[in-house]
């Protein structure tokens, strides 16, 4: 029996009228009228400048915007872009906008892009965040060029970030995915990225779309799938990252969209990551990382207090997730005074690995496991910020590198937890 398509009949009709394309650009929107204009303009300008001979379509998957976002996308005329760039395109640039529902779902939007790319036989598909206020026309080129001309299957971005922005990425997602799959993908949950027809062909009927992992964090699932299947990868530097509004509103949502899919993929790709050793560098166009100076505006004391009270209040929950030794160490750290606070790399890595193992065993409801990680992340974030307040960017990078090495060094610990489960220990 054929799998049911995510594409509505109306959308299929619109896509069929476009015919085959070389490039598809996906835009997932929901009430983005404030920011979408310049984004669409930059995309069009980039396409005309860099891909004048390619057949191109922009596909907007909208979650029921009520502020006229879809009208703005449809109305942003190609003539304006042509005027600004003083270039002529040799092909028609199609814009399709489709509403998939009334609730925001990154998974549905991504599934639509993948299926549409497959249906239109697009050689490359780029996904761009609708609130990338710093977007430049050459982003399209930077993302799609390696796919179309470099035989690369997935291009992920690198950004210039505030030194303490994305601590979940620098302290968990990046080092853990690097330890698991042996590739240094700096942005495992990219807001902008591009993939090839080979990868979309693999993803189109993937089981992730029916899982929470695929529904909440499709970007992470796509990255992991490409890593696990050994597809050629590349990274491209896009400059400053300022589209924070699209980021999850709270920490638990961020964990559900990033760590949840990572843990889920470890189980679904069981046997592919446990034997991988060492790290193979992913070719990068531009710098791998760039940080800006700046102080933290958040309340650091509150961060530590939420960690300490969280560890105390969640003791019965953590007892079912963590080993007694790790829980004891954690409770010791939580009771330390501010000046002696030390949430070491090794303890953090063990906590994360034991969470992954408990997630697989479903010792309690899986979403509860992800939620229970939030207070512990706060403790780690507090440690990371206080330890690196005044260090130079290179020294900060060295700290991240040291953490990555801890994740790699302790990988046998994760494998032992995993195999112990298989033996039923």
């Amino acid at each position: 029996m054929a799998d049911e398509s995510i594409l509505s009949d109306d959308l299929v009709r619109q896509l069929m009228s476009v015919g085959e394309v070389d490039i598809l650009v996906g835009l997932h929107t929901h009430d983005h009228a404030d920011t979408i204009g310049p984004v669409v303009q930059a995309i069009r300008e980039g396409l005309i400048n860099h891909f004048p001979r390619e057949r191109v379509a922009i596909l907007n998957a909208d979650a029921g915007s009520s502020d006229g976002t879809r009208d703005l996308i449809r109305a942003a005329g190609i003539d304006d872009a042509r005027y600004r760039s003083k270039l002529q395109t040799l092909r028609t640039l199609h814009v399709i906008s489709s509403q998939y529902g009334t609730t925001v779902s990154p998974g549905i939007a991504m599934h639509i892009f993948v299926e549409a790319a497959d249906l239109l036989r697009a050689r490359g598909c780029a996904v761009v965040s609708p609130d990338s206020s710093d977007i430049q026309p050459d982003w399209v080129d930077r993302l799609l060029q390696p796919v179309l001309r470099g035989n690369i299957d997935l291009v992920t971005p690198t950004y210039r970030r505030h030194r303490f922005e994305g601590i979940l990425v620098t302290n968990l997602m990046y080092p853990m995915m690097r330890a698991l799959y042996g590739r240094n993908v700096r942005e495992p949950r990219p807001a902008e990225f591009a993939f090839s027809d080979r990868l979309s062909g693999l993803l189109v009927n993937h089981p992730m779309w029916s899982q929470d992992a695929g529904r909440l964090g499709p970007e992470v699932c796509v990255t992991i799938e490409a890593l696990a299947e050994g597809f050629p990868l590349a990274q491209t530097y896009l400059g400053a990252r300022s589209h924070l509004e699209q980021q999850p509103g709270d920490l638990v949502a961020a964990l559900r969209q990033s760590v949840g899919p990572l843990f889920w993929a470890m189980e679904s790709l069981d046997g592919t990551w446990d034997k991988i050793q060492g790290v193979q560098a992913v070719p990068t166009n531009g710098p791998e990382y760039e940080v800006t100076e700046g102080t933290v505006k958040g309340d650091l004391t509150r961060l530590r207090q939420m960690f300490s009270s969280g560890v105390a209040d969640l003791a019965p929950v953590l007892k079912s997730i963590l080993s007694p030794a790790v829980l004891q160490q954690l409770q010791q750290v939580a009771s330390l005074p501010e000046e002696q606070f030390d949430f070491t790399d090794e303890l953090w890595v063990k906590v994360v690995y034991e969470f992954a193992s408990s997630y697989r065993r479903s010792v309690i409801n899986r979403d509860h496991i992800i939620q229970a990680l939030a207070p512990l992340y706060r403790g780690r974030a507090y440690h990371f910020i206080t330890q690196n307040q005044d260090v130079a960017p290179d020294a900060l990078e060295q700290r991240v590198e040291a953490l990555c090495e801890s994740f790699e060094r302790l990988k046998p610990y994760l494998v032992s937890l995993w195999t112990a489960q298989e033996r039923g220990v």
Partner: protein
Amino acid sequence: MGDMIVSELRQAWNEFTRAFAHLLPRLLTVLIIALVGWLIAYVLTVALRSFLRLIHFDRLSERAGAARLLNSAALPSPSQLLCQLVFWFSWLGILLAGISSLGIAGMQQFVGGFFLFLPRFFVALLVVFLGMLASGFFARAALLGAVNADLPSPQILGEAVRILIVVLSVSMAFEMLGFAQHTIEIAFTLLFGALMLGLAIAFGLGGQDLARQFLERRFSAHRGRPKKESELSPL
């Protein structure tokens, strides 16, 4: 006179031996039924224990919090308790069925009542077990939500949710069994009403500012995207 006494005694003895001879096979039948019933109950219990082990029933109960509750009431583990219940109920059932076949007056009605009570008892047991499961899940969800929202006394909130669901499920079970139906119903209504009223008063009076902020956030026309926990995005 002496002959009369002897004659009466002989007659009484004869009647006794006749009655005993008449009863003996029935007693033997009851004994055999009890023995066979015991064997059947034992086999049922062994099969049930293996099945419960296979589905990791104890681990499930532990996660649901049922094991903890039973332990605090000095009761055996959930699987042991269930096995013991099945053993005694099945043995008693077979025994009563056997006794009813003896034709003792009033026994038939008693046995019928017992068998009618059994399904209700097991449904009530299931309701309590599901209640325990639900209470464990929702208590943990409330605890995690309260911790991550930085609410005061998250443990009390979690325990309150647990107790509320357990009380609800136990009162439902009692209602099914038909025990003190009205008393439990009234007690539950009073308890639940008092709790809700208490919470409403506490929220309205004790947390006026919090209530105002909450309502403003919830219904304000300027409600935008959810506020981030800190200025720095974790992703």
